[in-house]
C-alpha cells in the first residue's frame, strides 16, 4: 500500500462527502468524527462561551448536512465547513453585543500602540514545564483574553490558517485592518506568554 499523502487525505474527504451526498449516514458521521474537535475549538475561541460554542457546533453540522447537496467539491470540505462555523460563531458573538467586552470594532484601527513591554528571552522549551493539558489551558486562556476584534482575526489566521483575504471576507474587514489586528493580537499574546515562559532574571525594560 502506498504511504498516506496529503492528497489521499483530501480524497478521503471527497469520497466521504460523495457517499454522504448519496445518503449514507455513516459517511457523514465519519466527517463529524474528523472535524468536530476543530469546529468546537473554533467556536469556543470565537464566542468565548461554552454554551454558545456547543450551539455553534450543532448548527454548523446541521447546516452542513442540509446543504450538502450544494457543496460542489471545488473547495476542501473543511474550508467549506469553517465558513459555516465562522458565520454561526459571529452571529452568536454579535447577539451578545450588549455585553461590553464584545465590541467588535470600536476605535481599534486607530492609534499607534507598539504593544511591546516585556523583552525577555524564553527558556529553552518552556512548554516542557507544563503538561499538554496545562499548556492547552494556558493558550486558550491567552486567546480568550484578547478583545474580540483581535481574537477573531488571530483565530482565523493563525489557528485555522485561513488566508488574509479569506479572513477579511469572512469578517467583513479590509486587508490592512486584518493585518493590523493580527499584528496586535500576536504581540499581545507574545507579551502574555513571555510573562510565563521567560528565563528568570533576564528582564530588560526600557524599549522604544
Amino acid at each position, binding site marked *: 500500500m502506498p504511504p498516506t499523502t496529503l492528497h489521499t487525505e483530501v480524497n478521503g474527504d471527497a469520497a466521504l462527502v460523495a457517499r454522504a451526498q448519496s*445518503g449514507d*449516514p455513516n459517511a*457523514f*458521521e465519519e466527517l*463529524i468524527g474528523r472535524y*468536530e*474537535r*476543530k469546529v*468546537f*475549538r473554533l467556536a469556543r475561541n470565537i464566542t468565548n462561551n461554552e454554551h454558545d460554542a*456547543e450551539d455553534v*457546533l*450543532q448548527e454548523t*453540522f*446541521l447546516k452542513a*448536512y*442540509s446543504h450538502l447537496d450544494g457543496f460542489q467539491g471545488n473547495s476542501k470540505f473543511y474550508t467549506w465547513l469553517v465558513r459555516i462555523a465562522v458565520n454561526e460563531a459571529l452571529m452568536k458573538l454579535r447577539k451578545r453585543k450588549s455585553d461590553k467586552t464584545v465590541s467588535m470594532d470600536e476605535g481599534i484601527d486607530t492609534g*499607534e500602540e*507598539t504593544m*511591546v513591554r516585556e*523583552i*525577555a*528571552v*524564553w527558556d529553552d522549551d518552556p*512548554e516542557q514545564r507544563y503538561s499538554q493539558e496545562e*499548556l*492547552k489551558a494556558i*493558550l486558550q486562556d491567552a486567546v480568550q483574553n484578547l478583545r474580540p476584534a483581535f481574537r477573531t482575526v488571530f483565530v482565523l489566521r*493563525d*489557528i485555522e*490558517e485561513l488566508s*488574509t483575504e479569506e479572513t477579511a471576507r469572512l469578517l467583513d474587514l479590509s486587508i490592512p485592518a486584518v*493585518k493590523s489586528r*493580527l*499584528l496586535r493580537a*500576536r*504581540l499581545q*499574546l*507574545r507579551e502574555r*506568554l*513571555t510573562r510565563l*515562559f521567560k528565563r528568570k532574571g533576564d528582564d*530588560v525594560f526600557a*524599549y*522604544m
Partner: protein
Amino acid sequence: MSLLTCKDFLHALNEYLDETQDAELRQEVEKHVNECPNCWVVFDTTRKTLKVFKGMEPQVIPPEVHGRLMERLQKKMAQRQKPAP
C-alpha cells in the same frame, strides 16, 4: 546599517511571519534583528508564540457534547429519509 526603525520592524515582522515573498523585506528584517538585540528578542519570542499555537491539537470534545450533537443530527436524518407525503 539596517534601514528599518524599531517601529518599522514590528510591521515588517508581521509580513515576515506570514512568509512574504518580498525578499528585500525579509532581508531587512533579518538585518535589523542582527543589529538590534531588543528586536531580536521580540522576533524570536513572537515566532515561538506562533509555533506553540500552531503545534496545539484541539482538545477532545466532551462526550456529552458529542452525544447531543449526534442526537440532533439523527433527528434531522430521520426527517430527511421520511418519504414525501
